[in-house]
């Protein structure tokens, strides 16, 4: 049996792969260059001499450990909050679809998908300020809120594929609604929870605008906002900037490497059902 290669598709995939790998390569090599080499107009050269100055300077300028911790906490709360809240909401909605209140609350949640943050920015800035939430806690709560609609959509679609008979058997054994959800449905939702969690992680970890507008105390800013200092019109410290980007990117890449199996399976499950 001969292996047949689909040449056009392979070529297209190869081009797509390069589109990701080339910038990644530049980021990594640039981070280890000296300032002089970083501006020599040759982005693809290997670092010579190898220098850690860029990383050290980025570490110092961004106050990396603190910004990283804040980013991590905000992301953790938003991932866990999104998974718990939207799975519970979806369960309630999917199993009560015949009732108008639940159906409409689903449409209500979906409606939020069409309200991007910039539209609400001014009112959110004022409201969080009045409520004492102009800090990372407010950012995390808002992240959960903005993830809610899309995640509920995914969960609801997935829940329709979970046979109701399973729940009936749990009911026969005397489980309450809460127990049914917590012991039976939530574990069954695990693949979708992985997908939702990854989307929530990426949205929260990479978000710039919301923390930059909502968080009042600059000492509690997240990484992407702190990295704004590298975007200057008049000077280019590529090695420092890319060093900082590399440190910020690393967690997202590591998380993706370990979870991509679930991302892919979760996305297709949600899509077909």
């Amino acid at each position, binding site marked *: 049996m001969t292996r047949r290669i689909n040449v056009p598709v392979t070529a297209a995939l190869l081009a797509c792969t390069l589109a990701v790998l080339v910038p990644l390569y530049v980021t990594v090599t640039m981070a280890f260059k000296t*300032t*002089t080499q970083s*501006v*020599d*107009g040759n982005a693809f050269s290997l670092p010579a001499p190898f220098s850690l100055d860029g990383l050290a300077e980025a570490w110092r*300028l961004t106050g990396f450990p603190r910004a990283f911790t*804040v980013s991590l*906490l*905000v992301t*953790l*709360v938003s991932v*866990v*909050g999104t998974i*718990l809240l939207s799975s519970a909401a979806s369960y309630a909605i999917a199993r009560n679809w015949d009732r108008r209140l639940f159906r409409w609350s689903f449409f209500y949640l979906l409606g939020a998908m069409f309200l991007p943050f910039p539209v609400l*920015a*001014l009112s959110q*800035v*004022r409201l*969080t*300020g009045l409520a*004492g*939430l*102009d*800090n*990372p*806690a*407010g950012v*995390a709560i808002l992240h959960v809120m903005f993830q809610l609609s899309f995640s509920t959509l995914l969960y609801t679609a997935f829940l329709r594929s979970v046979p109701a008979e399973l729940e009936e058997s749990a009911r026969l*054994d*005397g489980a309450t609604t809460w127990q049914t959800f*917590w*012991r039976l449905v939530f*574990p069954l939702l695990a693949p979708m929870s992985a997908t939702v969690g990854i989307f929530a992680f990426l949205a929260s970890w990479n978000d710039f605008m919301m923390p*930059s*507008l*909502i968080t*009042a*105390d*600059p*000492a*509690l*800013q997240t990484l992407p*906002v*702190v990295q*704004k*200092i*590298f*975007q*200057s*019109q*008049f*000077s*280019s410290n590529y090695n420092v900037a890319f060093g900082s980007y590399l440190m910020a990117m690393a967690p997202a890449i590591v998380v993706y490497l370990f979870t991509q199996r679930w991302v892919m399976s979760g996305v297709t499950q949600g899509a077909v059902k």
Partner: protein
Amino acid sequence: MPARTPSPPKGLSRRSFLGAGLVGAGLALTGCGSLGRPAEVSFYQSKPEVIGYFDELLARFRDERPGVRVSHDVTSDLSAGFARGAPPDLGCSNYNFEIARFVDHGALSDLGDMPEAGRINPDLLPLVELTASYPGRTSVLPYSLMAAGVLYNRATFAEHGLEAPTTWSELVEVCDALTAAGVTPIYGTFAEPWTIGQGILDYTVGGLVDVTAFFEALQEQGADTGPGSPVSFEKDFREPVERMLTLVGYTNADAAGRGYGDGNLAFARGEAAMYLQGPWALTEIAKTSPDLDVGIFPLPMTDDPADRKVRVNVDLALWVPDVSPRQDGARELVSFLMRPEIIDAYNADNLGFGVTTDAPPVTHPALVELQEYYDGARFYLGPSQLVPESIPVHNYAQAIVTGADPGEVLRTLDADWARLARRS
């Protein structure tokens, strides 16, 4: 069938882990939240290159005045801060249209009663007023001024027996001589629109048009701007723009595909004799060629050497928001930063010109050539900086240098100006 199945330990541990994590993170965030409003003077400063410099200054201030707590803020979003009613207590930022909005709306307090306000060079006041003003208030104190002209490679000029031109005809002669000698006269970086707006466009317009008078008349005229109005971009910018196109003819052939970084690199390597950038580019050029002998001359636009002027901009200005509850602390920090030894050291270290009457002349070997123009107030604000950001003047300039019909672009600029005036 047992009535209750014991819950699987694995699920339990994962659940409690999640729960504990959520509660823990929530507590940590709320903990941060309660500390979220520091009872200290927050000092906002927007220039990334000098974050470290101001860090050291603040450390000095803390040593001198342990009673006043200050924090350094380089990331705040000013609009959000003002919207929330809690902007930084003291700002030190580029005096541009972002801060102009707050000046115009009276969101900044009057610093006119501070003795430091009396030390500001009176020649600068019209420039500050032109960008933004609020009646009866000194809303900002200039801190650092940048003067820009044509950067030129002294070695290349000497090699070809040339001197910095003092008139338009001399400039054209210099360009012709360099071209004949096989040297690129001017390095253009037209891929980045701002380099055109603040460079070749501002220099040609500023050298021929009385920028202050033009924009005052334009602001007065507002929505009536258009064909036939007393002043208009179409009429007043026509000649400068045509001369700009003459100069574009002397740039490198690949200028349309080159950006700021390429320009710094090429000029540092001696690939062109002249480069139309401000002093900020000197730091970048020095990254590649620390010993390059660079001079600066104002772009001569007329045939009278006395008409030469330099482009200036208020690079940093201090301001204190009206709503700040810590006015005293903020003002104390203003007085500290305005002390002659501190403000003069800052400007000397960061290629700025002093803005106070007691400031010493510049000492940087490239900038010394511009001192006489600054002293004689022979300067203008960059016209591209006086056009509100909602009008893409840099992109219009890019269109002109890459082949668009100048008359049409300038008419668009007039129409934009009139439309904006009608709306506001």
